């Protein structure tokens, strides 16, 4: 998922207030920004929504990499629209986080300083056009798995942002699968490219859900607050069960010799990704971490004169208007 390993904050507040708050959540009520909430709830949400927003924004980079090299004008227009949607998702989520008392600039600076993270998946490169298919199919597919239940999250602005995002996501996954179908039905070379993309993106996609958290205290608190709806393992299992038949339809092989149907549990048994690789990527040592952060830093620095210029222009016009009245 887009927010991995979000630590929940311990809360030390009036037990009576906490119980009343929990009762509201249990009754399915939405919590709105100006209402009382435990500090831990606020801080955990800022961290989670912020990380989610950063992922949407950084996630534009691996796909943006292929906009100018899309194989047809139609594919280019589609990819451009998809990447533009991701910018929109980032903006919805930043606004939701800002209702909790953090500013947009603070969030951006926390990303740039490395204090806040984004999803590990965007630290992998998109080497060729088949990767764009694999990203839409697998990465957006995994994101949807996580985002659909979050529409029911207890924090009103987060829930509303997720509802908007989910409406737009299925286009993303379908355009990716459509690319994979074209490639898989193409020449042997094209099919080999599709298989290679699946081979490289399979385990990083499984990592998106984060390591197993069924015994984690943080996770239990977040679930009680309905900030988190399912465990990481539940979501990963659902993702595998949904994706395997889709790969079969393409005539592609999931790169996991241990993959097998388990009749008893009604799902697939599959291999865990290499978690040591995941922790390295989270620490900043993935194949593209440095490149991604450089691109964000450059955009921030080089956009400064523009942001300031428009503010100066707006102030001048407002002053002129007052003078004329």
């Amino acid at each position: 998922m887009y927010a991995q390993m979000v630590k929940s904050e311990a809360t030390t507040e009036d037990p009576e207030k906490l119980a009343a708050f929990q009762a509201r959540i249990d009754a399915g009520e939405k919590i709105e920004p100006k209402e009382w909430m435990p500090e831990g709830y606020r801080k955990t949400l800022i961290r989670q929504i912020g990380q989610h927003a950063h992922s949407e924004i950084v996630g534009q980079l691996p796909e943006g990499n292929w906009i100018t090299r899309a194989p047809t004008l139609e594919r280019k227009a589609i990819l451009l629209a998809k990447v533009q949607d991701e910018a929109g998702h980032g903006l919805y989520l930043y606004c939701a986080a800002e209702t909790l008392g953090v500013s947009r600039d603070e969030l951006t600076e926390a990303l740039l300083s490395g204090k806040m993270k984004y999803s590990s998946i965007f630290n992998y490169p998109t080497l060729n056009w088949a990767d764009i298919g694999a990203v839409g199919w697998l990465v957006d597919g995994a994101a949807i798995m996580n985002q659909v239940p979050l529409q029911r999250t207890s924090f009103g602005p987060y829930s509303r942002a997720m509802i908007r995002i989910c409406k737009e996501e299925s286009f993303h996954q379908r355009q990716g699968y459509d690319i994979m179908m074209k490639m898989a039905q193409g020449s042997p070379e094209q099919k080999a490219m599709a298989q290679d993309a699946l081979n490289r993106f399979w385990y990083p996609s499984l990592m998106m859900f984060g390591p197993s958290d069924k015994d984690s205290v943080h996770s239990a608190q977040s679930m009680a607050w309905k900030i988190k709806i399912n465990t990481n393992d539940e979501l990963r299992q659902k993702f595998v069960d949904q994706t395997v038949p889709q790969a079969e339809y393409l005539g592609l092989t999931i790169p996991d010799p241990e993959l097998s149907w388990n009749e008893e549990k009604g799902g697939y048994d599959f291999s865990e990704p290499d978690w040591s690789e995941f922790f390295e990527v989270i620490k900043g040592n993935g194949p593209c971490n440095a490149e991604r952060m450089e691109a964000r830093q450059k955009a921030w620095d080089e956009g400064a004169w523009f942001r300031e210029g428009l503010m100066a222009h707006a102030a001048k016009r407002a002053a002129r208007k007052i003078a004329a009245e």
Partner: protein
Amino acid sequence: MSGEWPLWEIFIRGQHGLNHRHVGSLHAPDAEMAVKHARDVYTRRNEGVSIWVVPSAAITASSPSEKGPLFEPSNSKVYRHPTFFDIPEDVGKM
């Protein structure tokens, strides 16, 4: 100084004949840019026929902690609802 663009609340009329509805917020340097950004952020799929933008700072909201007393007057007046009155069936539709 903090050069952050101010926050605007965005309202969109989805279809002719409907009210504008709050859809979210965004940052923009001025009203004109706020409308343009709102077009890009909130109407990428034909979601609207009209956009209003309002500086967030200009909105006065009722306080959540006074929800009870504020809305109490309407709570206690059940006779405002038509179902409060029993009208015999013989009278016909009313």
